[in-house]
């Protein structure tokens, strides 16, 4: 039962209801920080952490919370979790914190998190909400990483550069495939194009898998 539920939630978060690809939630951080893979990974981990904890807390307190005050309570829970995450990043991943800058505190405004609290965690048990947070968070994080990977490859001609932000130590150049790249990919328009390509790819794969009903 639990295993089945886990798989079902993961499938939903990673693919069927992916917060970025299908629900198109949390686009602001998604578009803003994905100029490199490491930035995408960092914000992905932070969002996954906040989303999972907020789902669990919202689900755990759902019996005592009146409908009228549920939104302020979600905001309170999410804001506290984000503040803690920011402090933890500043203490253990200072370089990554510097590079993600304002987007860590802005996780508060990521509508994917409030949406999961309202749509799922407030109506389901703690374990199911935990799985939902993990699935949705992983779906969002993987999309951030995929777009970061693509934009870094096309825009800078490198892969996994600046990994020292995550693991500390000396600056790492990553895999430099070509010197320089197509600049547009790392500029803001590149973010929109990359997301559009990702959404199109997902829709194409879905269509292909589903045998055409008409004709």
């Amino acid at each position, binding site marked *: 039962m639990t295993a089945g539920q886990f798989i079902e939630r993961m499938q939903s978060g990673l693919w069927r209801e992916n917060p970025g690809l299908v629900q198109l939630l949390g686009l602001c951080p998604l578009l803003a920080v994905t*100029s490199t893979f490491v930035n995408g990974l960092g914000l992905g981990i932070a969002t996954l952490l906040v989303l999972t904890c907020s789902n669990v807390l919202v689900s755990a*307190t759902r019996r*005592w*919370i*009146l409908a*009228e*005050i549920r939104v*302020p*309570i979600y905001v*309170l*829970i999410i*804001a*506290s*979790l984000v*503040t*803690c995450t920011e*402090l*933890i990043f*500043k*203490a*253990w991943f*200072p370089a990554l914190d*510097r590079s993600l800058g304002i987007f860590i505190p802005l996780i508060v405004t990521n509508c994917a998190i409030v949406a999961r609290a309202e749509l799922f965690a407030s109506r389901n048990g703690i374990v199911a909400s935990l799985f939902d947070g993990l699935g949705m968070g992983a779906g969002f994080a993987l999309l951030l990483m995929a777009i970061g990977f693509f934009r870094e490859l096309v*825009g*800078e001609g490198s892969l996994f550069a600046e990994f020292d932000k995550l693991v500390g130590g000396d*600056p790492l150049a990553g895999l430099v495939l070509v010197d*320089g790249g197509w*600049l547009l990919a*790392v*500029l803001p328009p590149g973010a929109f194009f990359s997301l559009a390509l990702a959404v199109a790819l997902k829709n194409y794969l879905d269509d292909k898998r589903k045998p055409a009903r008409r004709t």
Partner: protein
Amino acid sequence: MIPRTAKGGLTLAAIAALCATLVAATHVLTTERIAANEQAWLERSLLPALGDVDFDGSITDSRLTVEPPHDLPGNEPAIVYRAYSAGTPVAALFAVTATGGYAGPIRILVGIDVGGAVTGVRILEHRETPGLGDGIEASRSDWVRQFDGRSLGNPPAGGWQLRVDGGEFDQLTGASVTPRAVIKAIRETLLYFDAQQAEIFDMPAGAEPE
């Protein structure tokens, strides 16, 4: 029976208290590490601009703030760090703001030794275009290293410009606005140091020069 509004208020208060405790606990656990990180980061970002100058103690202890209006570049407070060896001044570091960049102010760090020669220049903060103007960062190109060892007389006044403008310094591919702003700021800092050198080194840490 408690009224509904009171119940709501109490729940809200309880959850607020819980959240505040969580944040406070994390804060207590991380404060020390965060302060140490900030200090380490500051020192690490300052040292490259001092080149191979030898000095005693921690560079951050000799901090001075120069409030505007001043003759340094920019209209914001400038920060000066002094380096001494056995009580004798050896070099000064200026954190100044270059204006005239492509996208907002550029915070730069200029190190100058007592002889008036640049020991190093580093960019602290900027919002120039990725792939073009960001070549001023030492991690992205060697552009900023061409100022090492330069001084007011080397090159003479007219040479403190880009080659395209008739000066002696290289431009960056695709960007000339950003390098111009940086060169101008470095020269203005050198001029200030030339005029104020004695006062800068005599000032006790934390004081403000005239």
